[in-house]
């Protein structure tokens, strides 16, 4: 955990709502965004392939129906073929340029790829995400994806100084998120947007309201756990949250270890078999103590504080 923390805090930003509430935001990591992009590109490619095949089959089918070649097609057949081609061109254009627009303008502000990876687009200044922003950020995808790829392929197949320079040039666009703290790609920069994590947490049960936690009495053994002032004073909020996590994960070995550690610290004799009730009681009483301190304006961040 301690190794993960600094990395995440590097991506933490705060957004102040018009009500004056500071909401923490976590910027999406570059890896997540790349994953989301890959998913979207695969979806677009699959859609394009399916539509192309369908158009080819129905075109060939139409021609075979009357046994004629395209140039000699006449009358209603000609019109239906023409219609097919126009439809095909329009659909391809939309897949290429409107796929991202369509989804990012929706209520979730995210394409299927972003949804799958749990991220979304948001306005950088904390206001509304407008249609103009979504338009602007998606107009730059060509220079960020298509041209760098073309440059890469040319450089790999042909070589030479010119293709190398163009690869370098377009590489700047493709790798733009690596050159700024906010992980903005060129489109984000021009649109005034960024991409943030969109966490969905469920409302967990309150740990402190179970019977054994609230009364400090184990329902299994009937043992009563009451902790004194100095026994609770050794820990702070950080330890409380760690304890909460251990209780929620509910892994036996972890609870035994934490139970032992707490008992050692407060000088109790660690028994065995009733760890959860002990920890729930300790959690509840520690929280009660720290929360009443909070109400008095005294906070204790961790055991060193």
């Amino acid at each position: 955990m301690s190794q993960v923390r600094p990395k995440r805090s590097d991506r933490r930003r705060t957004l102040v709502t018009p009500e004056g509430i500071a909401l923490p935001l976590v910027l999406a990591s570059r890896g997540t965004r790349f994953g989301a992009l890959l998913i979207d590109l695969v979806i677009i490619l699959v859609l394009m392939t399916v539509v192309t095949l369908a158009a080819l089959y129905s075109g060939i089918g139409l021609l075979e129906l009357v046994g004629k070649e395209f140039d000699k097609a006449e009358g209603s057949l000609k019109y239906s073929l023409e219609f097919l081609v126009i439809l095909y061109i329009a659909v391809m254009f939309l897949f290429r340029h409107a796929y991202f627009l369509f989804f990012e303008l929706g209520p979730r502000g995210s394409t299927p790829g972003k949804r799958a990876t749990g991220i979304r687009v948001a306005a950088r200044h904390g206001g509304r995400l407008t249609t103009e922003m979504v338009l602007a950020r998606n107009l730059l995808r060509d220079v960020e994806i298509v041209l760098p790829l073309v440059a890469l392929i040319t450089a790999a197949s042909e070589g030479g100084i010119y293709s190398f320079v163009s690869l370098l040039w377009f590489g700047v666009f493709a790798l733009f998120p690596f050159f700024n703290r906010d992980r903005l790609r060129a489109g984000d920069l021009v649109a005034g947007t960024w991409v943030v994590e969109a966490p969905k947490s469920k409302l967990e049960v309150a740990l402190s309201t179970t019977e054994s936690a609230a009364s400090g009495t184990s329902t299994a053994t009937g043992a009563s756990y009451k902790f004194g002032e100095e026994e609770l004073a050794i820990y702070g909020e950080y330890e409380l949250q760690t304890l909460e996590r251990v209780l929620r994960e509910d892994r036996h070995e972890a609870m035994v270890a934490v139970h032992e550690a707490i008992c050692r610290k407060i000088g109790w004799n660690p028994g065995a078999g009733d760890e959860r009730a002990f920890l729930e009681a300790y959690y509840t009483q520690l929280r009660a103590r720290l929360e009443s301190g909070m109400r008095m304006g005294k906070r204790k961040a961790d055991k060193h504080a």
Partner: protein
Amino acid sequence: MAMFSLSKEATAEAAIEAAALRSDRFRQDREADWIRLEAIVTRMEKGRLRRIADEDVLALPVLYRTVASSLSVARETSLDAATLAYLESLVQRAWFLVYGPRTTLWSWLGRFFGGEWSRAVRSIWKEMGVALLLMIAGTVIGWQLVLIDPDWYYALVPTDPADPRVPGASAEALKGVMYGNQGQDGLSMFAAYLFSHNAGVAILCFALGFAFGIPPLLLLIHNTAMLGALLWLHDDKGLLIDIIGWLSIHGTTELLAILLSGAAGLHVGRSMAFPGERGVLEAAAAAGQRAAVVMAGVVLMLVCAGMLEGLGRQLINDTTQRLVVGYSILAFWLAYFFLFRRVPIASDAE
């Protein structure tokens, strides 16, 4: 002692009551609101707006504020990390909905045509001037180059072997292309293809503007040099007015669209190179959003240009008529952009 044993059960219950933390009671009191908001938010995120009862839609902003205030109270009084995380994510999700893009496509289009587009175009008039100068310069350069050495034609204009339009071609051959009325087959397909191709170029032209505006300048010059070469070729055979008619019917719209996309690209590039008093990021974002509006219009103009080129030019075979159509459309665009100055109401950009 006697009293204690009498009310033993009652005290036990009271003990639970007392031991239950204050922050837990706070949560129990408000939980119902949180869960209701979560249900509404989840349904709205799934995009099933129609399935949501009106009262829920109305309740959203109210519930959002209630839950937001729950969050700020909980931050000061509760150390239940899971509940805090839940409230933070719920408030964030609701916030995105309450302050999210609220416009429907129709109301956005209404605002777009009702003044926002023309205002965005007017706001980049300086860049339009630069782009226009470059395009004229490009045309002149193209003309002059071919005038000095006709071999330049092959370098400027991508010719395919079947195209009769090469230096030394006869006037008849050139006329054949312009008035040949190449059958009336597949005109609409041709129009659709032209649109898709040109829109791609325009978007590219804009996107390159990001690189401090230099690539779109080159793109503009290169494209109009081709135009200059083509004009020279026809002037050589005394067909200048015919080629202008042939190009104008759709070209006024298409060239204006290309001019606009180049100008939009320049606008973004310029605001990043010279952000003024604001930071580069803010300047780029403001310019980018204005330019995006221009670009949405450019795509629409290219749809028109594609139809004019694919259908109109093939069906109208007379130079005068071609000129009339081309320049009345140009007049329409210019009037729309520069004379139509209605300020759109309640833009959500502000």
